[in-house]
């Protein structure tokens, strides 16, 4: 009874996709999730609450003080805290500061992600080989393009077709508008430099649901922007609203929450992986489950943890780890640069509704050739808005006139930020602590991940270029700053079990199979060779769908 055709470890954004694809192909699939079950709609207790229904109006001061790591996450508040792991519940060790933000529940972080979905360009895939860092990607844009389309059609992406080779067009639903100020700024920024292309952000929101979305029971985005609570309309993509119920409908899915995967079982006698060991999160009893193929989608660091903890005679240093590179070349996105400024005029313009995305400029640095003193580049995001009642916080004022003044919208402001490509290095790594264990008997993970000199150069360039863009757009009081946030708070951790053509320098092949354990696949952030400047989840989903297609085909041929 513990035997399935396939096991998927983790029900987040990539695990949900693995389960859906496997089940649709007729594969009996066990989907293991370490956290509790979260059912779409039913388990979104705060989704429709008004601000005044929260005792502290959203503030979580005590919890943030007691849990400083997760407390730094932008999406954590009184309305969302039930979807975030608290620091004390799941300790880890930081050789260098790393804010590990986690969501342990069915759906994982797909409930609380930022939903920005850009395709990688071919420049991104060619980057490491051209610039001589990490290793060459074993795939190119053309290998993934059909899978991007496949995933995009199902999840629904709002965006324009911009015709840029740095940001390939996607299968898109109507884009959100720019506001009046952003429209003007975009024109001025574009006129000032032909490499500065302002486009509207692409996000996994249904602006105009197609039949495939309606079949999932999902509806149109209502522009509430209370997404992190779970969407009562199913308007943004999550495993909970989309892939898991879809997989369930096939009759091939067994979803098992509260199941902490301890390790992958490598049977030394058979010379292959046969299943996984699972610790029941509640009873702490260990059980083995067996399958022909295993997908590890526990999210980047936990997938590394499971692989490192999967030791056997054949693999004494972790699954498939003959070259000693498992857990190394960890990477993330560099978010440190921030710019703000004020916009004069437009007092007669406003906006309606709350938009879940913002204008962005695809990377324009070192695109076709190396033309700066740093490697790679960055995506730029900006957004303008009018201040609300908060304008009263810094003002003198008492009484009716003060009240009336601050109930009208204040001046326009602009906020700009970067998403820089971090160039991975062997010294950035995660490994198992030799003594410390968690409450489930798993070794604690140690993070040894940091910024490098290149990141600081990238930030400096962003500060300079971003300031120039804003100046060209007529923005005043331009002010740059360094958030100095630790890696990890970007929640874009990647690497450690990278793909590659050569088993000497990579763990996975071009189909996301372990070179040395070909019935085990990794398609979450752990498989990434480099990070590009795009938000990563869409690429994880496309890689997952592609890998499942290959896995099932190989399984049917009897190759795995």
């Amino acid at each position, binding site marked *: 009874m513990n035997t399935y055709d396939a096991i998927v470890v983790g029900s987040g954004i990539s695990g949900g996709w693995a389960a859906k694809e496997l089940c649709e192909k007729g594969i009996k699939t066990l989907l293991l999730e370490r956290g509790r079950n979260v059912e779409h709609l039913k388990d979104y207790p705060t989704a*429709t609450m*008004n601000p*005044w229904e929260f*005792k*502290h*109006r959203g*503030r*979580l*001061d*005590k919890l943030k*003080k*007691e849990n400083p790591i997760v407390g730094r996450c*932008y999406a954590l508040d009184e309305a969302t805290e039930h979807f975030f792991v608290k620091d004390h519940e799941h300790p880890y060790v930081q050789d260098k500061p790393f804010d590990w933000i986690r969501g342990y529940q069915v759906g994982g972080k797909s409930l609380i992600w930022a*939903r920005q979905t850009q395709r990688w360009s071919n420049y991104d895939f060619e980057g490491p080989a051209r610039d001589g860092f990490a290793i060459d990607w074993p795939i190119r844009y053309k290998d993934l393009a059909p899978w991007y389309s496949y995933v995009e059609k199902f999840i629904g992406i709002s965006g324009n077709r911009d015709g840029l080779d740095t940001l390939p067009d996607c299968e898109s639903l109507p884009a*959100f*508008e*720019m*506001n*009046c100020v952003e*429209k003007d700024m975009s024109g001025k920024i574009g006129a000032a430099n032909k490499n500065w292309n302002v486009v509207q952000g692409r*996000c996994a929101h249904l602006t105009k649901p197609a039949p495939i979305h309606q079949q999932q029971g999902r509806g149109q985005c*209502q*522009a*509430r922007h209370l997404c992190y609570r779970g969407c009562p309309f199913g308007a943004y993509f999550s495993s909970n609203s989309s892939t898991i119920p879809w997989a369930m409908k096939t009759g091939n899915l067994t979803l098992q929450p509260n199941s902490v995967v301890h390790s992958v079982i490598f049977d030394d006698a058979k010379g292959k992986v046969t299943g996984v060991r699972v610790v029941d999160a509640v009873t702490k009893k260990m059980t083995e489950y067996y399958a022909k193929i295993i997908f590890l989608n526990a999210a980047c660091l936990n997938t590394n943890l499971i692989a490192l903890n999967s030791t056997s005679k054949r693999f004494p240093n972790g699954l498939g780890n003959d070259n000693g590179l498992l857990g190394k070349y960890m990477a993330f996105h560099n978010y440190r640069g*921030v710019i703000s400024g004020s916009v004069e005029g437009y*007092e*007669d*313009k*406003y*906006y*309606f*509704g*709350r*938009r879940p995305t*913002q204008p962005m400029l695809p990377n324009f640095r070192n695109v076709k050739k190396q033309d700066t003193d740093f490697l790679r580049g960055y995506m730029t*995001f900006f*957004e303008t808005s*009018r201040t*609300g*009642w*908060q*304008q*009263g*916080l*810094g003002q*003198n004022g*008492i*009484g*009716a006139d*003060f*009240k009336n003044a*601050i*109930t*009208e*919208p*204040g001046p326009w*402001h602009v*906020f*700009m*930020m970067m998403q820089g490509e971090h160039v991975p290095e062997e010294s950035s790594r995660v490994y198992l602590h030799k003594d410390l264990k968690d409450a489930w008997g798993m070794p604690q993970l140690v993070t040894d991940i940091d910024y490098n000199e290149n990141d600081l150069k990238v930030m400096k360039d962003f500060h300079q270029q971003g300031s120039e863009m804003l100046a060209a757009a007529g923005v005043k009081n331009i002010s740059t700053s360094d958030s100095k946030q630790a890696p990890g708070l970007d929640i874009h951790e990647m690497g450690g079990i990278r793909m590659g053509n050569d088993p000497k320098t990579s763990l996975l092949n071009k189909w996301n199979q372990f070179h040395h354990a070909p019935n085990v696949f990794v398609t979450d952030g752990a498989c990434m060779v480099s990070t590009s400047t795009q938000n990563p989840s869409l690429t994880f989903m496309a890689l997952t769908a592609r890998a499942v297609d290959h896995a099932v085909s190989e399984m049917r041929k009897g190759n795995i």
Partner: protein
Amino acid sequence: MNRREALNMVALLMGGTVVGGTVFLEGCKTADKKVAAALPLTADQIAFLDEVAETIIPATSTPGAKAAKVGEFMHTMVTDCYDEKDQTTFIEGLGKLNEASETKFKSDFMKLTPEQRKELLIGIDKEAKDYAGSKKKEDPNHYFTLMKQLTLLGYFSSEVGATQALRYVAVPGKYEGCIDYKKGDKAWAI
């Protein structure tokens, strides 16, 4: 960037001034005995806070802070969310504000006319802003800075504040990027 939520935006836009100062970012500690003895506040103290809040945000064509139960909200936030230092400042501030009333008008704050209360608080508001501008980082906050910030947060996130003084649209249904605004139209509540 959509991930940068209101608090961060406000912190930047206001040059680092956030409701409750660093309290909202850093959270609270266990109250010491002296503070613990002063909490919970009495019904009279909460009524006093209601009047302070009502003076800052009075009823006009829309309800004021008292109708939004801002006194009770301040009590909740000071109890649950303030650190010990701000709790002490806030609680001592109740007495200081009344002393200022005695000094200026030879009368208890609760017995002042609305005009007198306004005049008194205009003076204290200026004093608090001047103090905030010159204080060192480690110096305590001014008690009136705390009261005023909690008043604004409590009022504008309340049902009457959000739905009557501001425009609250729970389910916009769509996003329109560029609409006309005419002077007098209220800001969006969220």
